[in-house]
């Protein structure tokens, strides 16, 4: 690791001011489960770390009046996995409880996963798949984006250096009849090799997204497994063994996700 300054603000305004003060090389740290690994490899060399773990009001979840599920960005996976969420929101808790391993889930956060924007992570794919919204705060004020807008096509996020992700809002429980997240990984604590999110709207139409294949999670328009595989990873591009395997996995996981939502939607 390269030397850095560690700052622990208590409030959001203070955090934004600290980020501004320390310039573009300052980074936000929540749980640090991705950032610290990158810093040890010197892939990340922040001049300052602004910890949002102690910032009030970022580690909770509530239902808004319109029924949206509003989750603080510094909520850990472990907290999310234990949250009593209703309807299809239970799938968010299920995903949070089935990634990485137990000690990592204690520290790792929802917002951290979104900001890290690793395509193999589950939370970015799920957020894009169900059409979540994210709020950020910077010196210019509060800004809301859709999760789809958050991720750049070539990887990473569109967030500026002084921006802090504060809230993640998922559509109301009645926005979908059911949501299923399916993924494949070599070992239980590995990130996904392919992940597929399938949501059924009240009119019965499907909303599908595929993660871990492209540099960002992608929404697809096809609704049949073979079509989804063609759209995300055409046979012509699946030239390596890994890519060919991923192409097969997309169709298999899409089939599982679609079958599961259809079962859930009926019951």
């Amino acid at each position, binding site marked *: 690791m390269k*030397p850095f300054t560690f700052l*622990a603000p208590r409030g959001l305004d203070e955090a934004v001011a600290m980020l501004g003060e320390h310039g573009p090389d300052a980074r936000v740290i929540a749980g*640090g489960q991705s950032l*610290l690994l990158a810093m*040890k490899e010197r892939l990340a060399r922040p001049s300052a770390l602004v910890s949002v773990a102690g910032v009030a009001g970022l580690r909770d979840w509530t239902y808004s009046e319109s029924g949206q599920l509003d989750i603080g960005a510094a909520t850990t996976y472990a907290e999310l996995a234990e949250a009593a969420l209703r309807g299809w929101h239970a799938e968010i808790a299920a995903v949070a409880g089935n990634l990485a*391993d137990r*000690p990592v889930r*204690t*520290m790792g956060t929802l917002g951290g996963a979104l900001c890290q924007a690793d395509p193999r992570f589950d939370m970015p794919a799920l957020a894009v798949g169900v059409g979540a919204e994210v709020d950020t705060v910077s010196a210019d004020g509060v800004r809301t984006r859709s999760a789809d807008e958050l991720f750049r096509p070539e990887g990473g996020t569109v967030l500026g250096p002084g921006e802090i992700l504060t809230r993640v809002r998922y559509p109301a429980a009645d926005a979908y009849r059911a949501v299923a997240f399916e993924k494949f990984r070599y070992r239980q604590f590995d990130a996904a090799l392919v992940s597929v999110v399938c949501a059924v709207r009240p009119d019965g139409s499907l909303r599908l997204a595929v993660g871990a294949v492209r540099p960002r999670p992608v929404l697809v328009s096809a609704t049949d497994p073979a079509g989804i595989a063609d759209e995300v990873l055409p046979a012509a591009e699946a030239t390596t063994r890994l890519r060919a395997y991923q192409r097969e996995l997309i169709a298999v996981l899409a089939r599982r996700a679609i079958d599961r939502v259809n079962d859930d939607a009926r019951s």
Partner: protein
Amino acid sequence: MQEITLTVNGRAVTATVDERTLLLEYVRDVAGYTGTHNGCLEARCGCCAVEVDGDVVKSCNVLALQCDGASVTTVEGLSPQRVKPVQHITTQSLAGVYAPLDALQADADTLHPLQQAFHRRHALQCGFCTPGMLMVLKDFLEDNPEPTRDEVRGAIAGNLCRCTGYQHIVDAAMDAAEQMRQDTVRAAAAGDA
């Protein structure tokens, strides 16, 4: 450099440390509890697992500064008699490798149920992964008193053991779960009486 205070196994430890100090380094080098092992240093092997405010973390992937003011429990905190930090490696402490309970001046009854079960079920060979296994399983069994074998395997997915093949570790965890359930019942009965 920043001054921080962590409560390690019930003892307040204050030190001025470099910002880059990992919780693992703080626990081992500053507080002196070397039971927490440095395995991979990249959050893979789980040998460094400790509890921070009651939840298990991999201490090699957490900054000590992130835990300022927190209460940390290491494997030494599991059995109450082993709370004295080891300052030097001596022939006596090395002898502990061969007769660990004697060296600790402990007997099987004062160990944590998990430690007893590991001892009884031969759930360690070289013992390097054991502190991490114990801490993760303790946290898991406290939240899930009636696990299945598959769930136990899932709980230690982030802990690597190259000796045992995990079979005896799962055996020990199931044993310990049973013991901890009985202890809970007994404690509740004692509370009623």
